[in-house]
């Protein structure tokens, strides 16, 4: 049961990473902001201004 819970926790963490939820949480943590439309807009501004956008493979 514990192993299953652990596996589900890792799966959820992977999904949160793939879907950028973790990145947003880290952004909030780093900038000491609370989640809000303004904070999410700032998060996307920062991601979009990065010089290396994430490629997606064929």
């Amino acid at each position: 049961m514990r192993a299953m819970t652990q596996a589900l926790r890792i799966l959820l963490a992977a999904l949160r990473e793939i879907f950028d939820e973790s990145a947003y949480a880290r952004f909030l943590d780093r900038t000491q902001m609370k989640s809000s439309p303004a904070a999410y807009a700032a998060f996307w501004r920062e991601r979009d201004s990065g010089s290396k956008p994430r490629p997606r493979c064929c």
Partner: protein
Amino acid sequence: MNKPLSVLIWSIVASVGAIAVAVVAIRRGEPINALWLVVAATCCYALGYRFYSKFIASKILALDAMRATPAERLENGRDFLVTNKWVVFGHHFAAIAGPGPLVGPVLAAQFGYLPGTLWVLAGAVFAGCVQDFVILLFSVRRDGKSLTEMAKEEIGRVGGIVAYTAVIAILVILLAVAALIVVNALKDSPWGTFTIAMTIPIAFLMGLYLRRIRPGKVLEVSVMGFVLVLLAIWGGQWISQNPALASVFTLNAQSLALLIIGYGFAASALPVWLLLAPRDYLSTFVKLGTIGLLAVGIVALHPTLHMPALTRFVDGTGPVFAGKIFPFAFITIACGAISGFHSLISSGTTPKLIARETETRMVGYGAMMAESAVAIMAITAACVLQPGIYFAINSPAGVVGATAAKATETISNWGFPVVPADMQSLAHAVGEQTLFNRTGGAPAFAVGMAHIFSQSLGGETVMALWYHFAVMFEALFILTILDAGTRVARFMIQDALGHIYKPLGRTSWYPSILATSALIVAAWGFFLWQGVRDPLGGINSLWPLFGIANQLLATVALCVATTIIIKLHRAKYALVSLVPLAWLVAVTFTASWHKVLDSNPRVGFLAQARALANGLATPATARLVFNNRLDAVVTVILVVMVALVLLESARQWIAILTGGEAAAVKEAPFVRTRFAEEGA
């Protein structure tokens, strides 16, 4: 586990694997069960991972668990971040798994199930996984540097410039091919077109919801988006049955191409949160779920493969694309066996997340094995169809004939019986007007997938829903590539133009955004337009061009890998990357030779240009002649550039091995990991 038990277990795995591969390879004349493919693949991957990747990890790369990775040393909470290995695995797999491993194997199934299966298994274990693993580790040891930066530092300036140009060229051709596959899947299909059109407002809605209502709750909104997409699939059936609405969504190839070109421009120029990111989330959500479902479906249903092991088309006369099994099977299937594009991901975001060097084996080698398994599923989906039906769907009208009677007669005469009534009832079952000449691989994959799903979930009555779910799944995949690829190419062009005129390099300056978006969309739009007007279906010329470009990038990646291995004084093990490199050079250079100079007009670009010029003059003749000559020039430029990298690399290898040049690698200095103290 004690040693005798381990030896026993691995001996059993090896024996079962050998038997399964032998059955797949030797059985002739009667259909085989798809489970043989599954067992062969599982055993090959298990053996490859346990023994070959371990050999590479310990003897060549000397993975060091004590060495701090850039994620630890440069951790900034943004790009560099120590991350759980399974999370990185999922992240990496989600980035490398696109439509390539689904479409390539479906097209190559014209040779039979055997060539594709063997290439996918051997190519992945000995080449693709090795490339992804080695490049990932080398990037980790260089602070997460990109392939182009590593090529510049380790091979020289020529390597860097060629890698950069190859990436742009591949992106342009990839985007054109991807768009062409969507066009071919959606043309004259009101159901499919409606469903895909609906994903745009759904993505907008998701973007606005994420931005205004529940900031950052992506999983939540992805579930919501998925439910809306399912409703759009269901609604598409109603649209297709309503004559007035159906006519609005029944579009020909040219109209769809123009709409997709416009969409690509909008996706590149609009703010990323509004369209690109929500669609990416939606696509990833659908992708991971569907791949898992398909794997379960194949294992649970274990369907019979009706396609023979080898077809008569190994001689190069195939209707899906022209060219002999060597080299064309090996450039048609890229992503499931080896794909140069993966080296960009392995030297992109992934190396910045790796917590310990030892995890690169699981992420680099392991994720590519998972991708290869997706290709095996695609081969299964294509080969469960009756061969006559497979060829009727995938053959262009220019090859088999424009009418149902003519097409079925041609295909039946090849020894693959099919009658118009079969095709009509199948089209009816999946809710389409016709399934003839639906080239590009996506519709055949969708029919195969619907066949597998409908037999295990819902029966024949829901086959149309499964078919359109599969089309939506592929189109969503591909449109995400269009969005992200156009934007990545735009950033790369802006980066280069910024050296000429600084404001052009600013990614937030709108004149630059619009100009570079237009440039990149015009580039792939040109090839797309060429594809939709091509009487041979477009895929015949564009997919090999994409395969050549992609494998040439893999050649550059393997040149970088071999150079670094030699510089690490492990030349005696350099065959690990040299053998796949030599194979790819043989494949890509031979394919390029054929595509440019072959005297068969169906194969050679120049021969086709000559045939068109000497044939009946139509308003399109001049353009088709020009297009073929342009394709030939693009191929020659790519090959010459990669030959330069190869020569430059070989010069370095000889200089180092003869002592003429010092073997100095440009790794980041060793720093002991803090996890050593923490006992992690």
